[in-house]
């Protein structure tokens, strides 16, 4: 083991110094200062550390990054409709290079049960609970990128759903990164809280324009009260040169539910960390993920589900389709504490390798301290089933079409879990766009419902 | 042989048996019928000594001893057999090996000589044929991967090998097709004799066409609300349980 390298952190320290203290309450300044200290002490994750065994940040270390200004960045609205993955029939909050764009956003009105505003505004206005909730980001056990976010975030979304409010329209957060000179970094912070019995569907969409380098380092955390439920979609559509490092933390109280669908369609080096803490009885937690990688994309999904109370269920299904030189990583841990009796936890990781040069590394872990539990995990890695391919071809389907069909069938159960019809269509279209081969999705009918 | 007096029992906080009295003499077959949730299966579990069932009142005497004071395995050694409604699977433990261990535990308890593997196998094959249990199931792990019918036959097969003096059959007919039902009934009938008593717990009269009982008891809400001869079962089949429940609720009418 080597000590953190000061050179690694210099560009971030410089950016922090250059930005100076942000406008806002005193607690924010000290929180950010404290976070910067933590980041500086830990540095970037070291090569060879267990948590970063399969993901190399050498490319990131070489670069210098700068924060975008606090002024709104420009995009034209005609562009915007093309950038969205689906028509947002509900609420929309757009962030360009980390800065909220009021012009493109459509926020709910006051008194509608849901409050959505830029986090910077919520902090400035002193929205109830904002200090505690922002500070709670420290409690998920994330590594130094989360500290870096805490030190440098300017904005992101502040989302609060009041007691019993069932928000039927989804809330769509679009984070756009546009970094023509290859030096942009953004640290969006999305803070979500649901009071008792509240319901919310949230779409987080990370989109990169162009192929040059940038660092996208979002941190989203959920606080879900008793009997509340959240459905969360996360799309990664970053540019080829991007480094996308995200942290998603969830705390769930009794009888709450959380379902996350994560789709990664593009990016340079992508690392997603998810930590779900099941802290009340009767909690349901579902984490699903689909990675479609090609080119030299590297996608690393790390998840932790921490069962600390009895009678909770968790389900986890992560799949990867890897073509060309793509490299997929999965590390999923299920932790069951001594008190978490009657836990039912299932985890599955499946990867399909479509080329000689694609690589998959998988590490599904169980750490169990309670005896009356049902915990299983499974992992499979392989290529397309030759028998299935032959069967389809013998029925007159061309080789390429048959391949796409089988790959689509592999991925489809994760797409079929999407409840929102528009989003589902959008994700399906993206999936076909990304899959190898030239098959038209229209010509394919598979049992994805 | 078995004398149940005012037996009361509960599971967790729910009182299931609310005072049951039942006497079974050697050679008799008693059918216990009743709708779902009336406490039929609980009665079987309490007789066998399941720890989830807490006896809150009454007594059970068996061959003059206090049955409730005995460990489950000692009850088995004394000749009490429960054919389970839902037989559990025990991975990796061979059916044969398990049953030989059981038989020898019981023989040892009775001061009899233990059977060696060869003698046992001979006995097991004979009994398997008797209940028409596929011999290949003897080498498989206990109940693992057995069909519903195979599990029930396996229960009756075990009964045939262990030769209990009191056999409690808990819904042994459920989930069986007519051929399997006949095979199971034949197995039971072949074991009827002057020294052995049966309690046949069932929801339907169908089984009782093949295992003809001496007495029929109707259980409702934790109590026996009516007892009679085998014709009572037919009456129940015809009229359902409602009339008898109503009758019990309004004894005057």
């Amino acid at each position: 083991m080597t000590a953190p390298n000061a050179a690694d952190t210099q560009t971030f320290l410089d950016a922090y110094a250059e930005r100076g203290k942000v406008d806002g309450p005193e607690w924010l300044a000290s929180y950010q200062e404290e976070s910067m200290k933590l980041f500086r002490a830990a540095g970037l994750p070291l090569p060879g550390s267990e948590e970063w065994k399969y993901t190399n940040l050498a490319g990131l270390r070489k670069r210098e990054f700068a924060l975008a200004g606090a002024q709104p960045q420009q995009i034209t609205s005609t562009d915007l409709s093309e950038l969205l993955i689906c028509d947002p029939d509900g609420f929309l909050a757009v962030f360009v290079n980390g800065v909220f764009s009021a012009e493109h956003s459509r926020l709910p009105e006051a008194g509608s049960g849901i409050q959505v505003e830029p986090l910077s505004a919520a902090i400035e206005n002193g929205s109830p609970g904002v200090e505690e909730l922002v500070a709670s980001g420290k409690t998920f056990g994330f590594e130094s990128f989360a500290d870096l976010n805490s030190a440098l975030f300017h904005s992101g979304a502040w989302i609060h759903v009041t007691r019993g409010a069932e928000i039927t329209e989804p809330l769509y957060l679009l984070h756009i990164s546009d970094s023509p000179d290859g030096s942009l970094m953004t640290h969006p912070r999305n803070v979500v809280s649901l009071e008792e019995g509240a319901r919310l569907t949230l779409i987080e969409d990370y989109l990169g324009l162009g192929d040059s380098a940038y660092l996208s380092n979002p941190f989203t955390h959920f606080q879900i009260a008793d009997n509340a439920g959240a459905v969360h979609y996360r799309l990664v559509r970053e540019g080829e040169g991007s480094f996308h490092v995200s942290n998603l933390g969830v705390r769930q109280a009794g009888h709450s539910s959380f379902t996350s669908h994560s789709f990664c369609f593009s990016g340079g080096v992508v690392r997603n960390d998810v930590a779900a803490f099941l802290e009340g009885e009767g909690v349901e937690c579902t984490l699903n993920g689909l990675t479609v990688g090609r080119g030299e994309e590297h996608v690393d999904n790390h998840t932790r589900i921490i069962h600390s109370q009895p009678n909770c269920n968790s389900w986890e299904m992560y799949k990867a389709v890897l073509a060309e030189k793509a490299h997929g990583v999965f590390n999923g841990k299920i932790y069951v504490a001594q008190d978490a009796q009657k836990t039912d936890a299932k985890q599955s990781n499946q990867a399909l390798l479509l080329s000689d040069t694609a690589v998959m590394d998988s590490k599904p872990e169980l750490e169990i301290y309670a005896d009356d539990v049902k915990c299983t995990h499974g992992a499979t890695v392989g290529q397309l089933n030759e028998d299935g391919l032959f069967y389809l071809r013998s029925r007159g389907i061309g080789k390429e079409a048959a391949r796409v069909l089988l790959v689509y069938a592999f991925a489809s159960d994760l797409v079929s879990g999407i409840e929102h019809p528009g989003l589902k269509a959008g994700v399906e279209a993206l999936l076909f766009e990304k899959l190898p081969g030239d098959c038209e999705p229209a010509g394919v009918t598979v049992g994805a419902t | 042989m078995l004398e149940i007096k005012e037996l009361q029992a509960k599971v967790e906080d729910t009182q299931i048996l609310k005072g049951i009295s039942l006497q079974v003499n050697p050679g008799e077959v008693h059918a216990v019928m009743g709708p779902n949730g009336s406490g039929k299966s609980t009665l079987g579990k309490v007789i066998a000594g399941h720890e989830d069932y807490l006896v809150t009142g009454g007594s059970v005497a068996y061959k003059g001893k206090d049955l409730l004071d005995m460990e489950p395995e000692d009850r088995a050694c004394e000749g009490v057999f429960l054919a389970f409604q839902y037989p559990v699977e025990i991975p990796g433990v061979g059916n044969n090996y398990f049953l030989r261990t059981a038989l020898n535990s019981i023989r040892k308890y009775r001061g009899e000589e233990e059977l060696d593997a060869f003698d046992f196998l001979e006995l097991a094959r004979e009994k398997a044929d008797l209940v028409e249990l596929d011999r290949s199931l003897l080498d498989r792990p206990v109940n693992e991967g057995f069909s519903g019918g195979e599990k029930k036959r396996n229960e009756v097969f075990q009964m045939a090998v262990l030769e209990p003096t009191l056999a409690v059959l808990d819904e042994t007919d459920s989930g069986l097709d007519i051929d399997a039902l006949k095979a199971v009934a034949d197995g039971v009938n072949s074991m009827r004799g002057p020294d052995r008593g049966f309690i046949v717990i069932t929801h339907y009269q169908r089984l009782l066409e093949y295992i003809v009982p001496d007495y029929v008891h109707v259980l409702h809400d934790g109590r026996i609300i009516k007892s009679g001869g085998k014709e009572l079962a037919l009456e129940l089949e015809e009229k359902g349980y409602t009339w008898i429940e109503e009758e019990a609720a309004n004894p005057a009418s």
Partner: protein
Amino acid sequence: MQSPTDHLNELASQDYKYGFVTDIESDSVPPGLNEDVIKKISAIKEEPEWLLEWRLKAYEHWLKMTEPRWPKVDYPEVDFQSMVYYSSPKAKKELQSLDEVDPDLLETFDKLGISLDEQKRLSGVAVDAVFDSVSVATTFKDKLSELGIIFCSFSEAVREHPDLVKKYLGSVVPYSDNFYATLNSAVFSDGSFCYIPKGVRSPMELSTYFRINAANTGQFERTLIVADEDSYVSYLEGCTAPMRDENQLHAAVVELVALDNAQIKYSTVQNWYPGDENGKGGIYNFVTKRGACRGSDSKISWTQVETGSAITWKYPSCILQGDNSVGEFYSVALTKNYQQADTGTKMVHIGKNTRSTIISKGISAGRGQNSYRGLVKINKGAEGARNFSQCDSMLMGDRCGAHTFPYIEINNPTAQVEHEASTSKIGEDQIFYLRQRGISTEDAISMIVNGFCKEVFRELPMEFAVEAQKLLSISLEGSVG
């Protein structure tokens, strides 16, 4: 009525039956580790210069290494300077035959159920008995040598077959491999050596029985087995140690080499002293075992039943170099009281159409912590590789832990890799079912646990399978056995 859980807790704290000490005079080097100690060990064993150099190279490398802390086990720092690195029972004179072995030693092994009297042994098992740092006797040597099989102590092999030793020593586990293997390379005292010539199937099981007797002594044996083309050998290993309050270190290295079409079956029943019910004492079992399937169509199969040791840290592995070679790992690991085990395997697929199977059964009782840690690696050129892994854990009681850390690294798209893991407890309904049939709770638990381990036990040679089942029953059951 006693609940099954209480019963389990009671059962999980049974006595160790091999804890006696043999009162025998021994020759030891003074405690501590330095170049002189290594030179002294080498001198006592009259080793050639190249071996001493190899040891010293390892020692030099070891000084630069740090103890690994990544396993999920927790123990205080080991003081490497307070330990004795060489101890041997005082030889009364040069041994010419088995009849001349010290009767105290024969009695010790008799007491452990290992008869060194060739006449008394029923089935064909040849034994190399290792007492502290040295091999005291090897049975059936003559009979085996008629077939060209070499089975002797490591020291003897160095003297009699230096070319073979030189060719293969360190070829699977290099001296620089890891902290404990490197330490072993510097100070290893004795162990077994075995060579099966081309085309020979060993007619009997070869086995080594390890006994630690002396206090404050580390045991660092080294085993090397080479199976030449078209040969077959089944090798068994057993071990025990006296009960002592201090922890003792056992850091062995086992190297296996299988050439074209050769098969090695290596079985271990590990029953080192596990420490008392409060976690005091016991052996630290930090072992490196690795086999190389060098030849095409070769096969190496590891089977282990781990019930002893305070801490177990071992990953018997297979390097599948030859095309169509096969690696297998079957393991039962039981931890009770304060025992900790971090064990598993590595299957490294290099050759084409290589196959591996991993079956691991972990049982945790009391405050035991049991981790499976395994690596399945499919290299780029390993066209058509297959792996199936199954890791099941059983927990007994609410103070223990069961953990699974599989690493799966796939660099070839034609690989088919499947990993399954599950965790369960003994069902109360299972115990009740068995009790209703007249079987006591104690027997019911033992029956269910043995059923859980069945897929592993059936891989053991007959004699060992019985011993392993008994051991598991004793470990869990106590009086009934």
